[in-house]
């Protein structure tokens, strides 16, 4: 029953995000701040992880290609496919569930604990719209982050391959361009948009509806990370089955 209640409350919250909108003059700086916090603030860690994981994928692929009849360009091909199809949209989204999700849950949860949300409600403000809508809009720029992750992942693979002595640049680039299917990009970005929605709303839900004090803010952040990750994985499976299966 609790799960059903939580799911119902979550969907009511989704509806309330778009109800009684806050004045644009107030909303605009909130959106810009959330773009800075959630998108720009995540670029560093996303770039770092993407570059090195791209490198590791290239090295692992190369080391596992023991048969001499397998062409060397397969390293670039496998790296591209792994990065575009799964690593960038899904793996980065799980990392973002930890970084951005915890930030959203703890910031909204702290506002709940310190009665700032009550203050908004007493003033007659739609607190859900005021708090969650800017995050939702900011995360519509999430595909921009994933594009950077894709580029840097493939670049990391190239660097590891060439400078680690696992293959030549020509082989790698040939593999990267081999049998390119544009729909794979569309599939990746459809997933990215859905994950962005989950990243904005699930942590907001756990922050907004939390009860208790400072300790519960920490617990809510952890729960939010777990459920966002679980839902990213489930939705990833469903979308992959629907779009590529």
């Amino acid at each position, binding site marked *: 029953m609790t799960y059903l209640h939580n799911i119902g409350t979550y969907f009511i919250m989704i509806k309330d995000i778009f109800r009684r909108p806050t004045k644009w003059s107030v909303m605009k700086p909130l959106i810009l*701040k959330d773009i800075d916090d959630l998108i720009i603030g995540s670029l560093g860690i996303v770039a770092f992880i993407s570059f090195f994981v791209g490198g590791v994928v290239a090295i692992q692929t190369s080391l596992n290609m023991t048969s001499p009849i397998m062409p060397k360009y397969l390293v670039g091909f496998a790296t591209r496919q792994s990065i575009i199809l799964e690593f960038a949209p899904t793996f980065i989204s799980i990392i973002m569930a930890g970084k951005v999700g915890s930030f959203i849950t703890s910031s909204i949860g702290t506002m709940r604990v310190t009665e700032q949300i009550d203050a908004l409600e007493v003033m*007659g403000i739609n607190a859900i719209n005021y708090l969650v809508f800017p995050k939702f809009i900011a995360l519509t720029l999430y595909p921009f982050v994933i594009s950077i992750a894709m580029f840097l992942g493939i670049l990391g693979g190239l660097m590891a391959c060439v400078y680690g002595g696992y293959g030549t640049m020509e082989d790698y680039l040939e593999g990267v361009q081999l049998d390119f299917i544009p729909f794979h990009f569309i599939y990746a970005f459809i997933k990215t948009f859905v994950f962005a929605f989950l990243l904005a709303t699930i942590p907001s839900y756990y922050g907004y509806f939390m009860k208790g004090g400072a300790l519960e803010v920490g617990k809510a952040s952890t729960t939010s990370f777990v459920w966002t990750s679980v839902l990213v994985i489930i939705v990833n499976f469903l979308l992959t089955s629907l779009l590529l299966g």
Partner: protein
Amino acid sequence: MIEVKDLHKSFEDAHILKGISTSFEKGQTNLIIGQSGSGKTVFLKCLLGLFEYEEGSISYEGRNFSKLSRNEKTELRSEMGMVFQGSALFDSMTIAENVMFPLRMFTKQSMSEMEDRVNIVLKRVNLDNAHKKMPSEASGGMQKRVAIARAIVNRPKFLFCDEPNSGLDPKTAIVIDNLIQEITEEFDITTVINTHDMNSVMEIGKKIVFLKDGLLEWEGSNKTIFKTENEAVTNFVYSSELFRKVRRMYLEEDAQ
């Protein structure tokens, strides 16, 4: 004026408010007192419209809250100001931005008009030079004054305060009490204060409502509370030797 009739509120199996009827007059400080768990906070949150109640009614100058449309409720809420126990200032905004917030949300004033109003209100609460400070840089007393400034900036008709003196030293607590009373009389606001502070009860309790186990046990003023024989009230208010002495002195003076 706020009129409350037969108010009932429950949480699952717990019946918290068991039929409260009272009224809070305009232009005076109305206090809700009672032991922890007596239902004070729930009552205040019902008055604020934060909790929905099962039975009864609350009328704000003749407007029955539960019968208002969503837009009318929003309009009524814009006429309310609230001072929270922990001040509830927005961490990401400066003191001036906190005070300006209700004006930005509910008025179409220009920035210079809003700045003028913020200056007037901050001056009224004796915070002329704190505009650019962040709430975290302000003391507890300053934060309370900012919260009062934010609550009155949009000229509310109703002011609610939840334990405005908690965590403050006795001198600052008196300053806050006096400020709330002055503002209430100056702007002719209906003010309702939820408090544990006996100094507030004695100093500014023009009307006092005493709750016990979700029921209205007694109501009166800071004058009549000295004379009451109600055991629950005397046990609560005169639980310390100091206040028992004050009461004896008052009654002796009164007898003479």
